[in-house]
Each structure stands twice: as C-alpha cells, then as structure tokens.
C-alpha cells in the first residue's frame, strides 16, 4: 500500500471578485508540508487576497481550499490548521508579551501551568525571554513582530501565514529577520506561507516562490530557478534585473531560434517552445550577465550573442555599477558589472558592444 501525505495546502480554481473587479482569477497551487513558500508579486496583485482566503478571513467567489487534504471552505480561521502573522504590529496593546503570546491558549482553555510552559518555550524560540513582561509599546518593531511569531507558533497549528511581516522594518533589520524567519521555520518544521513584494526577502527565505500579478499565478518554482531560469517574461522583468527585449522570430528551425531585435539577429535556445517564424517573442538576459566593451568599427556583429549600442551613462551602486546603453531602436539595456566607476568610462554616445554567453539568454513565448 502506498501512503502519501496530502499537501499542506491545495488551492483549486480559486477566484475572488470584488463586484466587477477580479482580484484573483482561477488560481491553482499546491504547497507541500514543511515547505517555506513565498507569494511574491507587485502591489495589488492579489497576494493578500490569496493568503487571507487560505486562512479563512475571507470567502472565495469560487474554487476550493484544501488543507491537509480536507476541504475547509466552511471553517472559520480558528478552526483551520492555519494561523496568521499580520503586517502591522497586531498585538493586544494592553497585554504584556507573556499575556499576548498566551492569550490564544487561554482562550482554548489550557491549564495555566501548561500555558506558562508553552509561552516560555515560544518566547525562547524567538529570543524574547528577557522581554516577557514588557508591553508592546515598550518594544521595537522587530521585537513586536517576533511576539506575533511567538503568538502564532505557540498555537501548534502547522501552517503559518505571514502577510508582509517585515514590511514595516528598516532594511538592515529586515535582512536579519529574514534569516531568523528561515531558521525558525527549519526549527519548528511547519509550513510557512509568506507574502512579500520584496524579492530579496523572497530569495532569502523561500524554498519555492509563486509569482502573483493581476490576480494570476504567473509562475511557481524554486527560488533559484525563478531567478536564473524564469519561464515567463513577466517573471524575468520582475525578479532580478533583467533586460527584456522584444523581437520577431526570423528562423525557428533547429535547436536554436534566431530573433530580430533592433536590427541584430540574436541566437537563443528553443527549449522545445512552440515558436514559428514571424512570431513576436520576448528575450531576457540578466544585466549582470551582459559584458560591455568599447569598439572602434561599427560593423554589426554576426555571432548572434552580442549587439551594438551607444553608451549612455553609468549608475554607481556601490558593489556594482550599472552601465546604460541605448540600442539603435531606442531600447535601453543595462550591463551590471562588479567594478569601480573610477575606471575610464566610454564617453556619452560612444559605440559599445554588449555580449553574453549562449546560456544566459532566454526565450519567452506567451
């Protein structure tokens, strides 16, 4: 007999309409137990809506949510195996840290001694033991979010929903808390579903990332794949710093496809995608994979892996420097290089060549 544990979360054909407005259209996603899953996407994409529907805070217009294989459409939030960490510092202002964390257990009717044990353990896990007697207004933003985490994990529910838990924190603290979240998840071993529109945050914590935009689930994949090998051009434009080029297929016979972009013929792997000659497609190359070199002649390169353009300007970003190059058709391309901007730069308008490795350019058809 083969026994398979059902996925922690399975969302089937989920849609949510607000009047005429479609916030989610037909979303399908499966999240395994013990996974750190991130919902990433631009503002207004529908991430919160999806998360809140999973948590039972709002009803879907159509579709189903299964948690551990059971349909939970009829259950209120507290009857689901989920618990939520809110974006704002959503603590009870009049209770101290211990009371805040223990309140859910008190409501559940656990004996006092057991509550005290569990609360102490949860506070220890989030590193707040010293602050047990403080009131929320005596804590920093990061500490308040940790109290929320403790309040959630103490309930022993096995799916934790986090709606932009770090959004209100400053950049440095956010980085630290990201790692802490990741470690906490590994320690407690439950499923985390984390909403953010910050891709660095997503990359840090995620086992898998789902990209959500305009109510659609655009793409799901491991963090590394989403970054390195995006399937959809939207993913490429949202994650990392990709150059997205539009072009027309001029030859689609063989393992590689030839695409006309701004007068140049570029080669790109076909990856068994359904393309035909004359089709409009999109190409993406991450800016850190584009090398920049000055040229003297202005003969168009014919290797299919480079383009000519006019040097525009450089933007010094500390670790890297972004060089902006304008293509003949006016499109701007970026070449990001780890180097100091002190190096002599091409003058504005000078002809330059952009080149990349064959594996770095990707074809998107949709």
């Amino acid at each position, binding site marked *: 007999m083969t026994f398979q544990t059902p996925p922690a979360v399975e969302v089937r054909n989920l849609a949510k309409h607000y009047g005429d407005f479609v916030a989610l259209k037909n979303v399908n996603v499966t999240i395994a137990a013990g996974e750190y899953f991130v919902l990433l996407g631009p503002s207004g994409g529908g991430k919160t809506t999806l998360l809140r529907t999973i*948590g039972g*805070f709002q009803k879907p217009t159509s579709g189903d949510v299964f948690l551990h294989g059971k349909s939970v459409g009829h259950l*209120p*939030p*507290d*009857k689901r195996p989920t*618990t*939520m960490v*809110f974006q*704002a510092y*959503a603590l*009870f*202002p*009049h209770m101290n840290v211990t009371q805040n964390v223990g*309140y*859910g257990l008190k*409501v*559940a009717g656990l004996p006092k001694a057991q509550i005290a044990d569990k609360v102490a353990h949860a506070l220890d896990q989030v590193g707040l033991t010293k602050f047990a007697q403080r*009131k929320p*207004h005596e804590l920093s933003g990061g500490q308040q979010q940790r109290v929320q985490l403790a309040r959630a994990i103490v*309930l022993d529910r096995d799916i934790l929903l986090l709606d932009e838990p770090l959004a209100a924190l400053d950049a440095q603290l956010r980085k630290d808390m990201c790692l802490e979240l990741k470690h906490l998840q590994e320690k407690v071993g439950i499923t985390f579903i984390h909403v953010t529109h910050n891709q660095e945050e997503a990359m840090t914590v995620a086992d898998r990332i789902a990209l959500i935009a305009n109510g659609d689930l655009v793409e799901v994949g491991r963090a590394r794949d989403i970054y390195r090998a995006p399937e959809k051009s939207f993913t490429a434009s949202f994650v990392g710093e990709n150059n997205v080029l539009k072009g027309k297929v001029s030859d689609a016979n063989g393992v590689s496809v030839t695409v006309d972009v701004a007068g140049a013929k570029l080669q790109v792997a076909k990856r068994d995608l359904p393309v035909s000659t004359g089709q409009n497609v999109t190409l993406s190359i991450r800016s850190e994979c584009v090398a920049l070199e000055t040229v003297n002649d202005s003969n168009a390169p014919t290797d299919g892996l480079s383009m000519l353009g006019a040097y525009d300007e450089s933007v010094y970003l500390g670790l890297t420097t972004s060089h902006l190059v304008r293509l003949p058709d006016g499109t701007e391309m970026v070449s990001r290089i780890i180097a100091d901007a002190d190096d002599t730069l091409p003058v504005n308008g000078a002809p330059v060549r952009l080149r990349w490795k064959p594996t770095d350019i990707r074809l998107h058809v949709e």
Partner: protein
Amino acid sequence: MVSSPTNVTNGVRPVGSMQTPLHERLALWAFRAPLIFMVLFFAIPMAMTVVFSVFERTMFWMEPGFTLTAYENFFFSARLGNFLNSMKYSLISVAICFVIGFPISVFVRKSIPQVAQHRVVLLFILPFMVSEIIRVFALRPVLQRNGLMNTALTNMGIIDEPITALLYTHTSVVIGEVMSFLPFIIFSGFLAMEAVPKFIFEVCDDLGVGPWRRFKDVILPLAAPGIFAGSVFIFVNGLGVALLPNILGGAGAVNAGLIATQAISALDFPLAMAVSAIMMATLMTLLWIGHKLFDLTKILTPLS
C-alpha cells in the same frame, strides 16, 4: 564662520539686567491660563459653596456665621434617603445606558463603512436639536396611565391593567435619563473604540476568541477610559439635573439637583449650598474609592 571665543563666553545675556521680552512673558501666562481658569471657576466657587453652607439663614438671603443647621436639615430628614436613592437610580441609568449604548458604538465602529461612521453617530445626536424640556415632557403622554405604553401593552394582551408605576416614580426618571443621556455613551463609546484597532478583531478571529471574551478581555480594557468618562458624565447628570425628576418624578423620586432647587425656591440658600457641597464631596469620595479599588490612572491610560 568661527566667532571669537571671548565673545561666546561673555556673550551670555546678563540675567535680570534686561526685561524678558513681551512674547516670552505672554507664553508663560498661556501656560498658567488653565490654572487660573481652574482656580477662578472651580476652586473658588467650590470653596464659596462650602463657606455659604455654614452661613446663617435669613429671610431672603444669608449672613456670615457658623451653623450646621443646613446639614442637620439634610441629614435628619427624608432628603438623605432621597439623595441616596437618586445615586442608586443614577447608577442604574448609567448601567442601562451602557448596556444599550455601548454595543451600538461597537457596532458602528465594526460594521459600518469608515466613511459613513461619523454620519451615523451624528444621527444619534440629532435629538439634541429638540429642546430637552419638550423631549422630556413628551414622555408623559407615553408613560401615563392611559398613555401610549400602557395602551400598547394592553392591546397586545401582555398586561390586563395599566401600570401606574410608569410615571412620577423612579422608573420614569430612569427612563427619562436613559433617553436623555444615551447619546453621550454612544458618542463617548464611539470615541473610545478609536483605542481599539481594527486588526484586533481579526486576531481574535484567528485565535478563536468568542464574543463575550472578546468584549471582556479586549474591547472593554481598551475602551475603558472613554466609557469611564461617559459613565461619570451620566452619573453626575443623573444626580444633578433637576429637570428630569421635576417633570417625571414624584414623591421621593427626586435627585440632588432637585433637592437644591427646591431649597432655593424655599429661599433656604444655606441648605441649597449644603446639598451642593455634599454632592461634590460624594463625587470626590466616589472617585477616590474608585481610584483605590481600580487605579483610575491605569484605566485612563490602558496602554502604559
């Protein structure tokens, strides 16, 4: 620019040798203004009330002296019982107003769209546009023996005989007080709910906090300062507003305000002063006891 060091050390304005500028002196007085206001309009009148209450009564006014006749008149007559009763019934009014009014505030905050909330609250304040005398008088035909209430109850077959205890009793005074003061608790409750952030309700949903616990453990402590203010206001008015028992009350159904008013009509000014002094003393004692029991500063600032 670097200024010369001697200039800095010797440049301090000599204290006292120059007049402080006018605007600084004005600013100082602005800080003192509330104090002056409190002294002029609270401390002095209160002290005068106490002083006058021990003056000798004359035919039309009073003259300086020291006598406790007024207090004797109060404590050794039916007035004391009436006064204590009016405290009891004021408390009942506060309780009824709270039970009816506060859920309305919570409902408005929780379930009415943000943009409409203030308009809805204004609706509850509209009755104040009608003169209080008219509003209170209008209760008489409702509550009297052949009034609306009795007729309706009889017609519905709930009672066989009209209830006569509805008017000119404590009941009618309480009904009048609830009608008059309910908007205050709704309004102060509405403001008090500002201290209860909306996310709290979602957190409660998530933790499975039932309605009663939610009210007792979360809403009440957070809204306590506003509710407390509204309740004190209603209690004080229940004790002090003579109009209500004057129109709706009857034998024994009076309050401190009416006792004092009656004393003034009888030209017994020291007695009126004594009643007022006793009322102030009672309120202060109640606040003090409340403070000892519940630590009012804590109720008034639940977040610290």
